[in-house]
């Protein structure tokens, strides 16, 4: 940790520096995204090394969700280049498919399929998109449901579960496609306060196993503990990137300072 702190003049820590020589997990170059007159992403550059954990934060409307939604092409970027594990997201079907196979996504509102049981939610994609047999897919699903600690809920419908449980199912469902990168879009924002912890614990476990993670969140405790780097956004721009200690102790931009003042009480 001290190594990162002393290196904090640069953006990345020493460990990350060596990782960057490999093909990065995500590389964005001068990415723009517009909604009519509104610029959601304004010349965004971002490099994420394999195994790196990134927390993206910033005020609402700063483009953080748009940023991670562009990485698996749920939003189409208008300009610039995005590479995911070396594959260019150029709006071609086959490249989009390749990128989506490498990335898993967890949404703020879970987006579980309400008409399917927990188990069916987890087996649908492995069976239909990967051609797995039902038995194999079930084994796989139970493996990940056990990992998120809800194997006993497999036969229930999402509506019968608490928010925290639903979000853990959503994480398991994404993991069943064996992604190399996990994208989290405010995974705890729709949860009751007492359920935030169980979801964050699951994410921490995933981080410890070396998963590459990009997470939009306001959970600064999580960011401090898990993130290798914090990316602070404002008005569609990446304003600041730093290791958590550096960012919380010494935010360089005025905007980050006021942001931190407002969310850390």
């Amino acid at each position, binding site marked *: 940790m001290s190594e990162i702190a002393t290196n904090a003049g640069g953006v990345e820590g020493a460990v990350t520096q060596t990782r960057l020589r490999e093909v990065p997990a995500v590389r964005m170059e001068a990415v723009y995204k517009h909604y009519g007159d509104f610029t959601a992403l304004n010349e965004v550059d971002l490099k994420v090394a394999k195994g790196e954990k990134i927390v993206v934060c910033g005020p609402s409307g700063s483009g953080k969700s748009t940023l991670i939604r562009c990485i*698996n092409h749920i939003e189409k970027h208008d300009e610039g280049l995005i590479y995911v594990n070396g594959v260019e997201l150029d709006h071609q079907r086959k490249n989009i498919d390749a990128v989506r196979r490498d990335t898993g996504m967890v949404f703020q509102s879970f987006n579980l399929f309400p008409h399917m049981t927990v188990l069916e939610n987890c087996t649908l*994609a492995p069976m239909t998109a990967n051609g797995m047999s039902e038995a194999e897919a079930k084994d796989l699903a139970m493996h990940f449901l056990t990992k998120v600690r809800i194997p006993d809920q497999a036969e229930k419908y999402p509506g019968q579960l608490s928010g925290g449980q639903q979000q853990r199912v959503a994480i398991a469902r994404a993991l069943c496609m064996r992604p190399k990168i996990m994208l989290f879009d405010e995974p705890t924002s729709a949860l009751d306060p007492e359920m935030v912890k169980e979801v964050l614990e699951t994410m921490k476990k995933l981080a410890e196993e070396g998963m590459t993670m990009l997470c939009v969140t306001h959970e600064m405790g999580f960011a401090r503990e898990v993130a290798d780097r914090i990316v602070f956004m404002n008005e569609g721009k990446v304003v600041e990137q730093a290791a958590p200690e550096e960012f919380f102790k010494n935010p360089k931009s005025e905007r980050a300072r006021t942001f931190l003042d407002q969310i850390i009480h």
Partner: protein
Amino acid sequence: MSHFSPTAAVNYFFNYFLMKGVLVTIGLTVAAVVGGLILGMGIALLRMSSNPILSGASRLYIWFFRGTPLLIQLVVIYSGLPQLGIKFSVITCALVGLILNEAAYLAEIVRSGFMAVSAGQREAAWALSLSPWVTFRRVTLPQAFRLMIPPLGNSVNSLLKATSLASVISVEELMRRSDMLMQEHFQILEVYAAATAYYLILTSVWDAIQRRLEKHFGRSSAAKTRRVAARAPVAQASVEARA
């Protein structure tokens, strides 16, 4: 003939000739619903297409068939088209008219069902690399269908009664056969009482079927409602936002 004869009404109710008319009414309704759903689904898909020509054509279709009376459509198909050399059997005319008309209504019901499925469901499907067909068949269609059942039920109820218009082009369904009995025996109230009873029975049976469909397709959301009722208001809001 200054009184109402209940016995005569009961006799008409069990009249074999009238019963066969009931079967025709049921047949017309079922065929028009099935045909209308298939055609309506296609029209709804065109309507939701991003291609302006396809969606425009679909909009034009819906505008035309919902904007003109079914009676005119039937008469035009039956008596008008032969003038252009296009001639169908009576029953085909009725079916074509009913299906074309019903499809316009069902297309809007199908479309509203699909539009009510949250965008998050499609996004989750994309993120999981589901193919467009699997997304449609397994994710959006079942959810849209659940939302379609109440308006669909309403439409089928209307259609069941609208089949009586086919009597005008001489299809021998329940209404037409009632007319025929009435002209033969002049027991107006008695005959139509029997016919009315049949329509009420048919619509009631359909109501029961619709309720079962709603129950069947709503089972997961019923569980949701129970759960939500027991939970905190914050979570309730988020659950409802998705529903």
